[in-house]
């Protein structure tokens, strides 16, 4: 079920009413878990068993790690099997065809290749398997006392409630399909009885309006023109349109994904839960290092905590640091999809991060004041990031190169209609970033001024959602 669909418009009020109808934690967690499974299986009910198995395995593994009297060897084995299960599920559904093509002999590939290639990618699998990994790794570190909100055997935990809470954590519908990726330590301590009077209405409503605005008005309208970034359609377009389209896709991708994350955060607030922020005006970044602190922050944080640091991070010498950086970015790229273009995209980011590390730019503060030079740096960083996004729209590497070559050589008069659309629907993203850039100045506004501006801006966005939405479509990150 999509957040921008009629079934969801009926689903949400029903779940909301049922949730607050009961006052006990068991009822509320039960309602939210059951409705999350309905949400997940709405279009593809056959995916429900997969989610249920993933929840069960991670519940069982984390409970086994929480039990007292386990030897280190036993605990290590549980962790290993849980990781194998999570990574194996992800690998099978996402990378079976890619790996099969690489390792299988031609004869065997021709036999099972078509079957491997036909395995559908279950929506949200990249997200809920990462949450499963975070849970078992945190459980491994915590031991029998458990983690805050999810007690182990020595902390007074009970097996039934443990399974229920873990299933809820993995399946909670606002973040199930495309994040934000919530770590165990960020979520379990929030589980408890919720009251209508505790709902932060203003914060929820504003977040939801901004999220729906970015998705329905910005991303869905830009999608109409960026569809032209497709082979061979782009061959007919003049350079100016080709260049504008790359930037438009960059804005669309941000609006689509940040929109989804904001809707998820706003919805979770309605049920009394706070999800971590996922975006912080990423195109204001003045370096790639800063970009990754502002873009898909929960993925960056997950990769840092569960991959980069366990690999040794930057504590094992310069050479190992660069090696870890490349590996994390390479795998982070592949996480987006089973195509080499994603790996190239990740590696390119890795190279840029390494260059910044070499020149010491990674140490520069994100909150330094703006100057002419830093505006130029932000533009260069934005342009580098933007052109690398091209690999998301043209996963065939050769086509991406052809696109750039056409951009550099093709003349012709601009196609004004597409430029008009790009200008209209990119503008809100630019203004949103300007809003972020003037934050220090905004802090000097009186409370009344700030309040008025906020009300007018959100009222205008709501007006545009009602009148100026684009064609409804899926969120881009569903495919990852």
């Amino acid at each position, binding site marked *: 079920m999509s957040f921008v669909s009629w079934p969801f418009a009926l689903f949400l009020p029903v779940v909301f009413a049922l949730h607050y109808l009961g006052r006990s934690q068991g009822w509320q967690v039960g309602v939210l878990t059951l409705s999350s499974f309905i949400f997940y299986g709405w279009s593809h009910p056959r995916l429900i068993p997969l989610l249920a198995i993933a929840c069960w395995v991670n519940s069982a593994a984390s409970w086994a790690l929480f039990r007292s009297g386990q030897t280190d060897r036993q605990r290590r084995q549980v962790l290993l099997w849980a990781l194998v299960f999570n990574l194996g599920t992800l690998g099978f559904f996402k990378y079976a065809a890619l790996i099969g093509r690489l390792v299988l002999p031609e004869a065997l590939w021709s036999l099972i290749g078509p079957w491997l290639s036909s395995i559908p990618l279950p929506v949200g699998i990249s997200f809920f398997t990462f949450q499963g990994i975070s849970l078992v790794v945190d459980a491994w570190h915590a031991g029998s006392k458990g983690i805050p909100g999810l007690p182990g055997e020595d902390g007074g935990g009970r097996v039934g409630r443990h399974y229920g809470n873990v299933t809820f954590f993995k399946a909670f519908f606002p973040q199930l399909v495309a994040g934000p990726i919530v770590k165990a330590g960020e979520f379990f301590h929030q589980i408890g009885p919720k009251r209508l009077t505790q709902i932060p*209405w203003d914060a929820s409503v*504003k977040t939801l309006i901004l999220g729906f605005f970015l998705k329905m008005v910005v991303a869905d309208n830009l999608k*109409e023109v960026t569809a032209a970034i497709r082979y061979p359609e782009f061959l007919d377009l003049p350079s100016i349109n080709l260049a504008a389209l790359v930037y438009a896709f960059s804005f669309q991708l941000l609006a689509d994904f940040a929109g989804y994350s904001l809707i998820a955060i706003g919805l979770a607030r309605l049920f009394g839960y706070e999800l971590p922020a996922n975006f912080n005006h990423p195109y204001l970044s003045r370096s790639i290092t800063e970009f990754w602190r502002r873009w898909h922050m929960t993925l960056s944080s997950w990769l840092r905590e569960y991959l980069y640091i366990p690999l040794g991070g930057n504590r094992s010498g310069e050479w190992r640091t660069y090696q870890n950086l490349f590996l994390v970015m390479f795998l982070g790229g592949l996480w987006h999809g089973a195509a080499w273009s994603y790996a190239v995209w990740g590696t390119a980011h890795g190279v840029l991060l390494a260059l910044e590390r070499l020149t010491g730019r990674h140490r520069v503060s994100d909150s330094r004041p703006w100057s002419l030079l830093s505006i130029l740096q932000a533009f260069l960083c934005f342009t580098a990031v933007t052109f690398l996004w091209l690999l998301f729209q043209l996963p065939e590497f050769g086509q991406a190169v052809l696109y750039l070559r056409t951009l550099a050589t093709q003349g012709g008069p601009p*196609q004004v209609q597409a430029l008009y659309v790009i200008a209209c629907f990119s503008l809100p993203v630019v203004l949103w970033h300007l809003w972020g850039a003037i934050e220090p100045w905004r802090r000097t506004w009186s409370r009344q001024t700030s309040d008025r501006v906020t009300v007018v801006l959100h*009222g205008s966005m709501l007006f545009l959602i009602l009148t*100026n939405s*684009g*064609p409804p479509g899926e969120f881009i990150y569903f495919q990852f």
Partner: protein
Amino acid sequence: MQSASQSLRILIVAAVLCGLWSVVRIQLPKPELAETNYTANRMRIERFLEGPKPKCLIVGTSIAGRLLPSYFKGSGLENIVNLSLDGASPITGLQLTLGQPKTPDLVLLEAHRLWNPVRANDHQLLALSQGMDRRLHSEVTLTKADSRPTTVLYGWLKSHQHQEGGQVTEAKGPVNPSGVLKTVPRPEELIRAVHELEARGTKVVMIRLPVGRENPVDPKGQDDVDLLVKDLGLPTIDLYRQSLEWAEPIRYSDGLHLAPESARRLACALALQAKR
């Protein structure tokens, strides 16, 4: 209870803006063009389904879509609606027409790409004409395609551009000689739709328009469109071949679609012949 005062004021601001826009919207002319294909199609479908029932209907692709209803003013064919859908098969337009209890007296069916199969875009448009969104748009005027602020602005800018002549290009040499089809596939769905329209008392006339770089290499020779027309056995208005005789050549905005002035002349010629 946590504060919800901002939320209420946000709703009030949105309601006030909707009210203001409703008033402004009435003062402005309705846009005939939209900034994206989807919006243009939505606009045409909404006008067809909700406007007064037309006596004459144009069904076709984005090529015939350039024949704006305003170009027919004073031609004696005022009660005309254009249901040409950008990037869609003309069969979709016919299916929408057949979905109505009463069909128009005359359907002008554009011959270009008639053999194009129905694709995902067509399914999306058919769904658009039936879904919950459709019901919402028919009940709440402000949510209609021609009320979109960006569409109204685009329509206004284009109407000014048209008055100043707009951007035109000469057609390049044909890149699609004779449609490149070796044999014309027999579009069964199309034939069924045409027969059903005729059975319901509608006269169906094929129209052939100039299509820039997709015009045939040899204008006099027989091509796919001729074969198809012959196959369907329908009366035809061949504006493409007629326009070859005109002193002023046909111009295109992008090498394929008619420039406003040429579209206006073709609309007048079409009205003259359709009335007969």
